[in-house]
């Protein structure tokens, strides 16, 4: 048995009021939506390590059980940033259309899903509003595959997290 298997401890708990407010502000700023429509009243978190925490809505209040994940995945904390979940952005896009996103060519998608950044020439379209954070959309099927942040100095979209992260980090 590896040492990780022996020592693994996951931190779980209820998200603080200030973090909940940060998530609400993020959704409001990026997508111009009323956050209360998408955010459950109670948010819990599970941290797998220092680099990856997931935030999800708690509906059932299973107080006697250690809950590690519930159905409404809301946000991720990674690379010291709080970022919306792929699921919540899919839901917002389904209601309001695509906003604050980059639509990426096949080669860029492949690199991104393995944790790499996106080169400027891989971006087919930038969908406004143009903020620091962009949902990354695969041009082949219009699926949200993660998030990237524009780095003006390096002139690339830096990978904040991608759908492959969960396989890499969680096994």
């Amino acid at each position, binding site marked *: 048995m590896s040492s*990780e298997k022996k020592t693994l401890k996951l931190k779980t708990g209820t998200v603080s009021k200030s973090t909940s407010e940060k998530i609400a502000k993020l959704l409001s700023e990026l997508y111009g939506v009323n956050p209360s429509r998408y955010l459950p009243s109670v948010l819990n978190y599970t941290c797998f390590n220092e680099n990856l925490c997931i935030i999800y809505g708690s509906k059932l209040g299973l107080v*006697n059980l250690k809950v590690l*994940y519930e159905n409404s995945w809301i946000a991720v904390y990674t690379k010291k940033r709080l970022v919306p979940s792929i699921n919540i952005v899919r839901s917002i896009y389904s209601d309001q259309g695509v906003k604050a996103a980059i639509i990426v060519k096949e080669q860029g998608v492949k690199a991104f899903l*393995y944790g790499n950044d996106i080169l400027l020439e891989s971006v087919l379209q930038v969908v406004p509003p143009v903020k620091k954070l962009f949902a990354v959309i695969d041009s082949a099927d219009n699926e949200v595959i993660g998030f990237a942040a524009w780095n003006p100095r390096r002139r690339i979209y830096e990978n904040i997290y991608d759908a492959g992260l*969960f*396989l890499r980090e*969680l096994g």
Partner: protein
Amino acid sequence: MNIDLAEIYREIYVEPSREAIELSMKYGYLPYIVQRYIDILGHREANKLLEAFEKPVKSVVRTNTILINPSELKERLEYLGFKLETISWSNESFRVISQPKSPTIGSTHEYLKGYYYVHRDASSLIPAHLLLHEFSGNVLDACAAPGGKATFMAQLLHRTNGVVFANDLVLYRLKALIGHFMRMKLNNVIVTCSDARKLKDKLNKKFERVLVDAPCSGEGRISVDPGRKTRTSLLDLAIMVKREIEILYNTVDLLEPGGVLVYVTCSIAPEENEYVVNKVLEHRSDLEVIEPPLKLLDYGKGLTEYRNLRFNSELEKCIRIWPHTHQLFGYTICLLRKKH
């Protein structure tokens, strides 16, 4: 229910014959394991079983039908160089007949995007089909990690808003399970960490459907893990059997009257299956064995006797998947209904 480990050990004890010892040396097994195969199947068929365990199995791709339809996925994977064959009784799934040097089936970007789950073998599709046939509602998966059955059930229940309560005791396995749920964008799940034996005291809720995929010896998966030929001593087996009885006995309390529980192991050991269910039936008059609602394959029957043990005749309704007759992992599945 008091379960005496010494009694279990005594009841399942096997003294291998010379014939079993010779066969076990040929194939590299602990002799008692082979003796049991001879006792159940006879010498000739036991040989076929041991031969079948030497053959590689083909992994299976199960389409995440929430994100993509099976024919589109098949087309995309075939474009990458995979040769796939549809599984006739589970039409969202494909057997991987051959694959390119790169990418592997677990590293395509279709996989990373959650378009499919990779099962080591098609046997693990059967329990979810049987448990959720014509059902909508919530389901408890009491020992859920690493998640093949839980993700499949979440997918099957997605349209009807049914929720999968996926529980397991082992944190590092739960971590992988959560990874699969997130990768596959399955929203109708709740993941909890608890000993399945204690769930009834912690979960203030009952279910119409429960899956107990008990931690077992994995004796049906020897073809992909040959270490299992020698890993489990008879005492280890007795300890597992005790835990399996405790898990099944206690999870029945989480069933609604009229509700159905599937007890499954990836093991062909009668001790871990018919023996376990029989012990629980002896102590619970509120439980009955039922026929599977679907005939996906020409199933093998459950055992009603084994060596000196006589089991409840109803156990014939259990299903046995044999590697040498079905060309699948060995599985044993029993469907139990809680009486009103």
